């Protein structure tokens, strides 16, 4: 098995090297591209550490959607760079601090028991009652469903914050030409099928709401880029509904089951699987809409509205 160790060491070094390259790149665009590569490499690392779900999420959200957001912002701020650099003594001081913190963490990490105690036994024991076969989905949507609800709330909060911040309409993106339109007509429906499949597979294999949502989000972003769909002010009500659908269904189901003898978030055993699938489906749609809205970056104001400058 030592061949894989060589690969692991190589990948680890590549990761550290890439991390330094991302932050040391002199040009912002290069930094973002290197960051996307770093994201993909991390996904590879997750695969090596036997965490397929996380690899999918990292690739789809960590590298894909985040990369798209970064590139979009880069275009909007036009690569304006503040030239000031931090003075050398501060660099050395903070460097020493960071090194100290990291080495402290390293010591604590090495002192920790390798492959120490965990909850895998408890998960396996309760898997039958959780309504899904795949352990990660069971943890996400049943054991720690409260965490996942709050995670979707964070996403919802992000879109509320972004809509409250951004206002002024901005210059339109350049057209991507006919070839892309043809490709889009073929690829996008296929991607939608892939997204739906990912959602469905989540119950038994690595996959699930977030990964599926991310793929569908990517589809929406491509549609926005190709301006197949231009968000109009009239669509705002629909968009608001889409953003909060996931959280609303999740919260109402969680509270709903809470009435009567059972605890909140405690699905009745017979209904566990359908309920989880219902929640996952709506959450996937919600995530896709939210990620696309985050990419679009602002509430689609009626174009004519002249937003007076804040005093």
């Amino acid at each position, binding site marked *: 098995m030592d061949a894989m*160790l060589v690969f*692991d060491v190589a990948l*680890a070094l590549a*990761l*550290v090297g890439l*991390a330094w390259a*991302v*932050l040391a790149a002199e040009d*912002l665009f290069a*930094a973002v591209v290197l*960051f996307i590569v*770093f994201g993909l490499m*991390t996904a590879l690392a997750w695969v090596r*550490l*036997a*965490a397929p*779900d996380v690899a999918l*999420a*990292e690739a789809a*959200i*960590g590298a894909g959607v*985040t990369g798209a957001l970064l590139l*979009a*912002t*880069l275009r*909007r*701020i*036009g690569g304006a760079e*503040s030239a000031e650099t*931090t003075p050398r003594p501060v660099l050395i001081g*903070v*460097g020493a*601090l*960071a*090194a100290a*913190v*990291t080495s402290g963490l*390293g010591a604590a*990490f090495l002192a920790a028991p390798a*492959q*120490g105690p*965990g*909850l*895998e036994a408890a*998960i396996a024991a309760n898997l039958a009652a959780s309504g899904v076969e795949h*352990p990660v989905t*069971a943890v996400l949507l049943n054991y720690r469903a409260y*965490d*996942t609800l709050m*995670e979707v709330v*964070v*996403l919802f909060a992000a879109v509320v914050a972004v809509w409250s*911040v*951004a206002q*002024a309409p*901005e210059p339109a993106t350049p057209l991507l030409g006919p070839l892309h339109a043809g490709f889009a007509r073929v690829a996008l429906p296929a991607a939608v099928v892939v997204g739906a499949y990912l959602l469905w597979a989540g119950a038994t294999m690595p996959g699930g709401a*977030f990964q599926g949502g991310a793929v569908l989000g990517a589809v929406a972003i491509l549609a926005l880029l190709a301006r197949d769909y231009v968000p109009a002010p009239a669509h705002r009500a629909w968009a608001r509904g889409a953003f909060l659908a996931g959280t609303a269904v999740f919260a109402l189901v969680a509270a709903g089951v809470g009435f009567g003898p059972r605890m909140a978030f405690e699905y009745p055993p017979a209904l566990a699987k359908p309920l989880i699938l219902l929640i996952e489906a709506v959450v996937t749609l919600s995530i896709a809409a939210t990620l696309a809205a*985050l990419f679009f*970056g602002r509430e689609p104001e009626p174009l004519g509205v002249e937003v007076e400058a*804040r005093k």
Partner: protein
Amino acid sequence: MSPDLIYGLAGLAVFGIGFFRALTLAAPLRRVLALKLCAVGASFLLIVAAYRQPPVTADAVPHALVITGIVVMVSAMAVALALIHRIAVLERERSDG
């Protein structure tokens, strides 16, 4: 020298770089990148905690936590990028306004 040890240390190194640069970089976009690297470094720790020698299946809880962490991180970055964009727009308005 099992994989979890290698990647654990690599993750901490990535965190160190990210933490160092997050405190020293001035450009807001680069600081966002640095913070995302710190977050990835931190999630290495969790995934390594979940790693079990191959025949045994890995512990699913940290995986769920890291997925949540990724989604939280992307939403925080989205807000940061929206702020950066809005600041750039206002500064451009102010400079030529």
